[in-house]
């Protein structure tokens, strides 16, 4: 039950992580698993760029290329970017609001394990007859005709991991609404907490359409229904709508937390409070709202009609306004600040121009007539990589450096960080800037190869070289992580010295109960306020007392495992459209669901009241003894 450095056997550590409900350990799990999938998606990206390095290349064949391209997108969005952001949310948000854990620690663990098994299921497709090959959007007209089980891995895997994401999103909403420390009003919440809150609200509203869409597609392919089959009276366009009603808010689910991370980093290293705090909050909420009103801009060429195209074009352009507010607020936060250039700050500085380029090309595509020219070209690829890498991945890398001390108690090497940043930044622009022009020259996206003599050779070569640079940068980052872990040089509570929010007031890594006494929040940038008044600790809001803690549990693991087993049963059921149904399909489906619902039943019937850490043990902890 201890989070302190008592030497434990490997088995005990593994068991601890399998059963943990502690938000800080779940953060480690999310970071590790998300990081693994990030590397996997990165390798897939490299394969794409190697294939497109020269014309008529045959490094991979067309079918394999489609699979790699699909899995690159799906993995990066669902299994890498979101989970890694969840890692930082878990590690930081409860502490930022002065809570001891999230509102539902058990559900937090369940959310992680559902994501884990969903991701594993999706990637097992590589070994079981081929990965999904209809793009990450998996448009029904294409995916219904896909041979083999690739698309079934997509629908079932995303269904399972989607449940996990939905559960985690609801959990963060409940946490932020109910678990704030005394004095932590909404308008005193740090920006990362705010963006997590809005992103969670977006998850709550955006994931149900995806769940429904994927569910219908799953039934079309596995159980003989015809929701999307035009020849049987279905409507294939509905999939596109469902997908993008989810898919567009998804972009904001990814980028808002990244905005939050930069809104923490920039004031910290400018040694100045965030400029225009309330307008930042307002802009975040507004982006959240508008995010739901613009999905059809992905479908301008579908034939929605002029009126619909015009409405969605205008709504899309409107999003540039709150985003612009944010950009100017960040610039004005730095204006006149005493700026310290650290690795996280470097990423923040690189983020602003990169993201603005992505935003500007976004507004260009919002012009519906121009989009007819740009649609399905490399211009689009360049645009969304500028937004996702320039915004989200820079945010993730910045947060990795920024929050590493808080999560693991050691500090990543700044020197190697500079090298990583430089290579990654140059490699990123090298890869994607030229793709704008490839797109304008007419290179379609998602093609497995291109012909010589069309003026596309040089651009693609430059792009592939850039991808290699990014790969080298990530390898150096990995090396950095390994070296830092081996050196294991512990740092103090506030390793950046200029921490503003509450997480920097408690030890790194924090004790498993976070706060001995719930802190009293006396204003925005709580810890900064206390530091400026010469205090060494937060002001407590309660006397020292017993702390109620939840018990660890293996049940989340089994609930998720059940769905993982059931997914195999559903895929090989006798009705499936591939025609290789097995007689064991149905029994396995039932057994899997039995494991899931049985685990839920055990959870419901067994009373688990948790345990208390006693006051005496906490006092003992002060004197150097360890609770546990």
């Amino acid at each position: 039950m201890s989070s302190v450095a008592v030497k434990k056997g490997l088995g005990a550590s593994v068991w601890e992580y399998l059963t943990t409900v502690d938000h800080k350990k779940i953060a480690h799990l999310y970071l590790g698993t998300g990081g693994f999938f990030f590397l996997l998606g990165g390798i897939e990206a490299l394969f794409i760029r190697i294939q497109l390095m020269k014309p008529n290349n045959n490094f991979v064949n067309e079918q394999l290329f489609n699979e790699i391209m699909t899995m690159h997108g799906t993995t990066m969005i669902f299994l890498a970017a979101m989970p890694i952001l969840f890692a930082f949310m878990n590690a930081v948000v409860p502490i930022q609001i002065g809570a001891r854990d999230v509102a539902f620690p058990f559900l937090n663990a369940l959310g992680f394990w559902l994501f884990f098994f969903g991701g594993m299921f999706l990637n097992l497709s590589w070994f079981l007859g081929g990965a999904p090959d209809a793009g990450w959007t998996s448009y029904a007209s294409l995916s219904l005709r896909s041979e083999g089980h690739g698309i079934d891995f997509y629908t079932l895997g995303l269904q399972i991991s989607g449940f996990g994401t939905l559960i985690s999103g609801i959990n963060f909403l409940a946490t932020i609404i109910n678990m704030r420390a005394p004095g932590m009003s909404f308008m005193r919440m740090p920006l990362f907490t705010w963006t997590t809150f809005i992103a969670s609200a977006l998850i709550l509203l955006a994931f149900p359409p995806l769940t429904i869409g994927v569910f219908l597609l799953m039934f079309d392919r596995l159980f003989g229904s015809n929701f999307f089959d035009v020849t049987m009276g279905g409507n294939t366009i509905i999939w596109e709508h469902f997908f993008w009603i989810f898919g567009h808010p998804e972009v904001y689910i990814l980028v808002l937390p990244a905005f939050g991370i930069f809104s923490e980093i920039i004031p910290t290293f400018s040694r100045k409070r965030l400029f225009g705090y309330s307008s930042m909050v307002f802009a975040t909420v507004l982006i959240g709202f508008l995010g739901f009103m613009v999905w059809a801009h992905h479908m301008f060429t579908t034939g929605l009609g002029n009126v619909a195209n015009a409405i969605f074009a205008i709504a899309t352009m409107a999003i540039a306004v709150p985003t612009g507010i944010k950009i100017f607020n960040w610039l004005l936060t730095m204006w006149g600040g005493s700026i310290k250039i650290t690795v996280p700050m470097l990423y923040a500085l690189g983020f602003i121009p990169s993201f603005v380029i992505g935003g500007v090309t976004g507004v260009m595509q919002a012009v519906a007539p121009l989009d007819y020219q740009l649609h399905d070209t490399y211009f689009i690829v360049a645009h969304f990589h500028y937004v996702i890498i320039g915004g989200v991945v820079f945010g993730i890398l910045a947060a990795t450096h920024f929050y590493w001390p808080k999560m693991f108690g050691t500090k990543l090497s700044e020197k190697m960080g500079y090298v990583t940043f430089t290579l990654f930044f140059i490699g990123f622009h090298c890869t994607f800037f030229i793709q704008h022009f490839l797109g304008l020259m007419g290179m379609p996206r998602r093609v497995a190869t291109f012909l010589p003599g069309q003026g596309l050779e040089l651009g693609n070569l430059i792009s592939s070289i850039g991808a290699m640079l990014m790969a080298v940068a990530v390898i150096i980052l990995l090396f950095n992580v390994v070296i830092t872990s081996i050196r294991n040089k512990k740092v103090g509570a506030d390793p950046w010295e200029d921490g503003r929010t509450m997480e920097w007031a408690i030890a790194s890594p924090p004790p498993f109960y976070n706060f001995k006494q719930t802190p009293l929040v006396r204003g925005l940038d709580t810890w900064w306020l206390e530091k400026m008044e010469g205090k060494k600790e937060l002001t407590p809001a309660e006397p020292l007392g017993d702390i109620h803690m939840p018990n660890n549990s293996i049940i989340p693991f089994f609930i998720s495992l059940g769905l993982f087993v059931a997914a195999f049963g559903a895929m090989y059921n006798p009705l499936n459209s591939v025609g290789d149904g097995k007689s064991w399909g149905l029994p396995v489906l039932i057994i899997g669901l039995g494991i899931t619902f049985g685990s839920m039943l055990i959870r419901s019937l067994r009373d688990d009241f948790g345990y208390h850490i006693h006051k005496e043990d906490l006092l003992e902890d002060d004197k150097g003894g360890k609770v546990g």
Partner: protein
Amino acid sequence: MENEQVKNPNLRAHHDYRRKKSAKEMQVQVITFALMIFLTIVAFIAVGIGDFSVKFIIPFILLLAVIQVGFQLYYFMHASQKGHELPMFFMYSAVIIAFVTVLAFVTIIWW
């Protein structure tokens, strides 16, 4: 507990106030409930009478449904009371988003 309430004048007043308020609330709830049943009957009659065109009946029933949802939220789920602001904010956000979605579906998919 009962005794304490009788003796302490402060608690006594509070208790009386709460009683009066609950009685009033109960009255409103009964009226609302009757109204809701009435609206349901109206909806059935509108369809059953058979003289109205479909173009009238569908919007009319939808309107009655909206009123009923309002009754439900504000009189039975206490949406107007203090401490319910945030749930209501989420409800209205979801309603707006769902409305836009349905509107788009009926106007640009099933035209």
